[in-house]
């Protein structure tokens, strides 16, 4: 489990793996410190990575099948091997682009828990910057639930964590979608809720 929170050892200048909590992903207010940083579970990568490859193969087979069933006169220009070679090269390039895009969308997306806030940040975005922040000093946590989004995630013990607040403070729950360690997040949120409750004192 600890390995999931370690970065890829990708940089030749930085051979030592660093924890995600040690990286300054957000700006801190005085007294704020990071409790937990997680990415989404690796299982969510399988679909987006396999889909472009499967789609490209299906299109290739479909086009070959169509060329087989059409009369030769209709496909005279399309049977040119130059066009086939071009289509394969361009399709490969686009598939690689989609794979890189899907991977980086996962790689630069974080759930961050500090002692004062819950954050969901996308750093790899094409149009703009995505951030969802809930300040724990301002809202009261009502309920924390964990449930798997589908039976495959249930089988692999991968769960969503939903945090519900007072309806007047925040209607929609803050959702940790398939984080890499849902149990850790739930435990930390329970601790934070208890601490905030103690700090506020009896009402």
């Amino acid at each position, binding site marked *: 489990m600890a390995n999931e929170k370690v*970065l*890829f050892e*990708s*940089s*030749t200048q*930085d051979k030592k793996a660093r924890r995600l909590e040690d*990286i*300054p*992903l957000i700006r801190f207010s005085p007294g704020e410190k990071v409790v937990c940083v997680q990415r989404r579970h690796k299982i969510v990568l399988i679909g987006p990575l396999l889909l472009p490859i499967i789609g490209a193969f299906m299109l290739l087979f479909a086009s070959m099948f169509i060329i087989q069933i059409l009369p030769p006169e209709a496909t005279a*220009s399309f049977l*040119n091997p*130059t*066009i086939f*070679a*071009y289509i394969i*090269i*361009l399709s*490969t*390039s*686009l598939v*690689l*682009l989609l*794979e*890189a*895009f899907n*991977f*980086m969308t996962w*790689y*630069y997306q974080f759930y961050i828990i500090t002692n004062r806030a819950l954050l969901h940040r996308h*750093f*790899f*975005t*094409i149009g703009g910057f995505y951030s969802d922040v809930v300040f724990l000093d301002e809202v009261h946590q009502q309920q924390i639930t964990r449930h798997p989004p589908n039976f495959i995630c249930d089988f692999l013990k991968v769960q969503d964590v939903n945090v519900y607040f007072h309806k007047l403070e925040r209607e929609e729950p803050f959702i940790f979608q398939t984080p890499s360690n849902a149990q850790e997040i739930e435990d930390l949120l329970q601790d934070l809720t208890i601490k905030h409750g103690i700090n506020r004192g009896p009402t």
Partner: protein
Amino acid sequence: MDFLSGFIKYFFILASGFALILYAIVIYAARRASLRTKIPIPSFLKQVIALGFILAIFSLVFVLLFQP
């Protein structure tokens, strides 16, 4: 047939150009995310992007040099 082959050629040029633009956008967004988070892009991913970019350039050169 001349119109068809010309249409095909220019359509492929546009498609290759569009692929190159998409690559430029994704590379820019990746660099921005890497700079903002101080997390470097994984080396295998750089290789994938480089390979795809080279294939996109090659497809453009291919369609310009070889008349489909």
